[in-house]
């Protein structure tokens, strides 16, 4: 276990006019850890994720990320161009709706290959080969490499998006409700896949979910958010089995047992 954190978020805040969406949130993430941000809609968890991803500009705070070279960079302090380039190169993002994270007009292979090509890959055969490997890794048929994403089901599109997000093996991946909107059985398969990939690749993940079952399965640690603030945090099973804060207790007790 390395001693240097991968990501340190400090006093991050976002206000939309008079309404505070995120109030001074901070946390540290180490390599290989999965951190879940849980809460109901309006809790600020998605805004927080988007600030880390550089898609929303914070009003205050810092997002210090340890880049490939080992330097620590505050993403908030970078120019927009630098931030976008860094995020594109080193941080993966999995959207809730796979269509937001895919190019629907080009083949599955082109979708998975694009991050490689953006990073400078120039050998068609190798790109294709890597893309096929990744299709297998996300348990899809590699013979469908040339099919368009629109010919896949929702669950398969999500797998495709995951392959595209992970193909360059970024050290940090941000996921926004990766299994939301999918059938329950499809969700289970996808969670299983994510669990294994995250474990095998040793990547760090910040995961937004309103589903405590997803959090329990995937996350080492949990941040419970309510109205823009973190009301409780800790090791996942501790927060879910011994919730301290009234809101956490409410969340936990509201889960319908299968």
């Amino acid at each position, binding site marked *: 276990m390395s001693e240097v954190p991968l990501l340190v978020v400090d006093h991050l805040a976002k206000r939309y006019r008079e309404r505070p969406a995120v109030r001074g949130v901070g946390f540290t993430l180490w390599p290989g850890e999965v951190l879940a941000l849980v809460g109901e809609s309006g809790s600020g968890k998605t805004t927080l994720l988007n600030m880390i991803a550089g898609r929303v500009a914070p009003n205050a705070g810092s997002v210090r990320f340890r880049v490939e070279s080992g330097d620590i960079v505050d993403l908030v302090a970078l120019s927009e161009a630098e931030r*976008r*380039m860094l995020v594109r190169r080193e941080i993966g993002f999995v959207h809730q709706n796979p269509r937001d994270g895919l190019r629907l007009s080009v*083949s599955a*292979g082109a979708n998975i*290959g*694009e991050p490689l090509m953006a990073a400078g890959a120039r050998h*068609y055969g190798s*790109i*294709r080969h890597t893309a096929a490997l990744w299709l297998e890794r996300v348990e899809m048929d590699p013979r469908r490499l*040339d099919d368009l994403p629109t010919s896949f089901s929702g669950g398969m599109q999500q797998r495709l998006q995951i392959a595209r997000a992970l193909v360059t093996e970024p050290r940090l991946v941000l996921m926004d409700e990766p299994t939301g909107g999918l059938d329950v059985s499809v969700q289970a398969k996808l969670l299983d896949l994510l669990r294994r990939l995250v474990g095998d690749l040793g990547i760090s993940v910040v995961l937004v979910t309103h589903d405590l079952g997803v959090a329990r399965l995937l996350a080492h640690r949990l941040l419970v958010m309510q109205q823009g603030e973190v009301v409780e945090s800790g090791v996942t099973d501790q927060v879910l089995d011994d919730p301290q804060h009234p809101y956490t207790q409410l969340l936990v007790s509201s889960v319908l047992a299968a």
Partner: protein
Amino acid sequence: MTVATAGYNFAYLDEQTKRMIRRAILKAVAVPGYQVPFAGREMPLPYGWGTGGIQVTASIIGSEDRLKVIDQGADDTTNAVSIRRFFAKTAGVATTTRTSEATIIQTRHRIPETPLAAGQIMVFQVPIPEPLRWLEPRETETRRMHAQADYGSMYVKLYEDIARMGRIAAAYDYPVMVAGRYLMRPSPIPRFDNPKLDRSPALLLFGAGREKRIYALPPHTPVKSLDFEDHPFAIERWTERCQRCGSGESFLDEIVVDDRGTRRFVCSDTDHCDARLANGSAP
């Protein structure tokens, strides 16, 4: 030298406009391959007919220049004739069909076979200057992509071509990388002509009238056509030769000559073909 028609400023545009366009050209030359916006004027012909090229030519042409205009390689097509006449009337400049004798060559869709020399300027007519437009309709996004050299998606198109058709399909307007930095569209010249862009001793200027963009390749700029290591860029080749002059090296037009579908292959570059004939070449 023809006499200019009275009532028009030299080369039609007012001096302030020419200055503005020359500034844009200087900027374009300073950043090879980068699209410089300019305040395009209303020209006496519609968009799609070469207004960008005409504005560039109008801004750089002087009374001592000798102008050649070609369209699809030929001096005698309607558009080439009209544009040449336009400058003869409004600038009174000398015109020519000989590539080697021209100081400025305005072109649509071809680069002449005769190699260009230092001191010559080629002006290209460009319909769509943005190489990423097929992928991204938003101007704000394509500008960002150029600024960040975010060109992975262009390779996606090439990849997709190979996946679908076994080869990169673009026959003309084949995308190039300029000086290893900017992605550029060379205008709808056939891929056959792309190698002529690389390190050309001439100054190459590109004008898009409708989109109001100018870009440039100063002399000796490295220009590389995009490809994959295992699918390298290759130009077209014919098994036939020109049936007029016998050339096996030039870009050939395929012409249907009768109702039975008989085809003739002739050089697209009329000046080149004529010159070869004059020198005694035979089919």
